[in-house]
């Protein structure tokens, strides 16, 4: 399994066709979409979605968080408008993700950006952002292929999950944890120095406070904006006043790809 992870240091094979090299990059994500997609399909089935609509929602919305939210809110009988509103607040975060990808997609046509935006989501964003930051040859075309591979695996896993859900009885609270585990993995991959861990703690506390205050996932958007702003201000202050601060030291970890990201940022 480790051989297939996207490692910016490995020597690329010049004869390898593009569909295969991008598939190799996308494969770890594709594989982890299988359990999460299955879980999501099972939950959507329990919420009353038929298999066809489960496929459709996976293709059109393509967001684990949003689809888990739809399933949860349908089972507590929320009205249509309030589900759509919650989805809007949950999906607002994509504005931040696509803003941060935009420097790498300059000069692309509007048609390309349209197609790219449809299949953008948290996880393929994380992969593409890493590749854009570490691999000079990574372009919008490769990034779009990664998005489409992950979309395919996601939709198929959801449909199969829906079919499993109609055949078996499954504990849904356990299935829900698949997405949490995925987010935890994403956090670990983003941690570059001690300061990042501090930001995580701040963000976690803020998220709890903001969600209790707003009684909705709007709190997620607010706390994300504030925590990332604090991170930015702390880092620029530290770099100015204490450039040698140990809070900025790189963390060593068994995988080497974080250091590659950092070097390209400097």
């Amino acid at each position, binding site marked *: 399994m480790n051989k297939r992870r996207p490692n910016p240091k490995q020597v690329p094979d010049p004869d390898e066709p593009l569909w295969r090299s991008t598939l190799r990059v996308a494969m770890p994500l594709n594989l*982890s979409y299988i359990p999460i997609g299955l879980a999501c399909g099972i939950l959507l089935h329990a919420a009353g979605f038929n298999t066809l609509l489960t496929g459709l929602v996976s293709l059109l919305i393509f967001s684990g968080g949003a689809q888990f939210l739809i399933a949860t809110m349908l089972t507590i009988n929320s009205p249509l408008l309030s589900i759509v509103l919650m989805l809007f607040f949950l999906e607002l975060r994509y504005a931040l993700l696509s803003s941060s990808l935009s420097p790498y997609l300059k000069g692309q046509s509007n048609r390309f950006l349209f197609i790219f935006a449809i299949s953008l989501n948290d996880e393929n964003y994380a992969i593409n952002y890493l590749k854009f930051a570490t691999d000079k040859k990574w372009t919008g075309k490769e990034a779009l292929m990664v998005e489409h591979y992950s979309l395919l695996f996601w939709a198929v896993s959801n449909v199969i999950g829906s079919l499993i859900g109609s055949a078996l009885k499954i504990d849904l609270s356990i299935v829900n944890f698949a997405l949490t585990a995925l987010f935890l993995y994403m956090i670990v991959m983003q941690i570059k120095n001690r300061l990042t861990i501090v930001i995580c703690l701040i963000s976690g506390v803020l998220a709890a406070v903001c969600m209790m205050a707003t009684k909705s996932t709007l709190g997620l958007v607010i706390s994300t904006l504030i925590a990332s702003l604090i991170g930015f201000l702390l880092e620029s202050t530290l770099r100015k006043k204490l450039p040698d601060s140990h809070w900025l030291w790189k963390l060593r970890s068994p995988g080497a790809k974080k250091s590659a990201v950092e070097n390209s940022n400097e």
Partner: protein
Amino acid sequence: MSTVNTWTSMQHFWLIILGFFVAFIPRFLPLMLFTKRAIPEWFNEWMKYVPVSLFTALVVKDIFIDSATYQLVFGHIAEMLAAVIVVVIAYRTRSMAISVIVGLIAVFLLSLVVA
């Protein structure tokens, strides 16, 4: 959770269509705007901290916030312990698939013991 929902497939369909628009617009508009004009450097530096803040917030929501009342709960012991296991596994293996699968197995086994 049980199947208590009484929506028809047509209502589900409209939910998907509306959901598509609220999911698509925030993904598309910033790409459209910021690929055409320059982004200030400070904005990029700020955006660097968005993923980690967002993912942490989502994890806190999944583990510590009740999905119906939005109150803080500390009762999900199995999820908390499994989260620690996932972090260790993710740090050691750097593999997304292994982290998720180990996390699912851990929460299943732990919920048998502590719940």
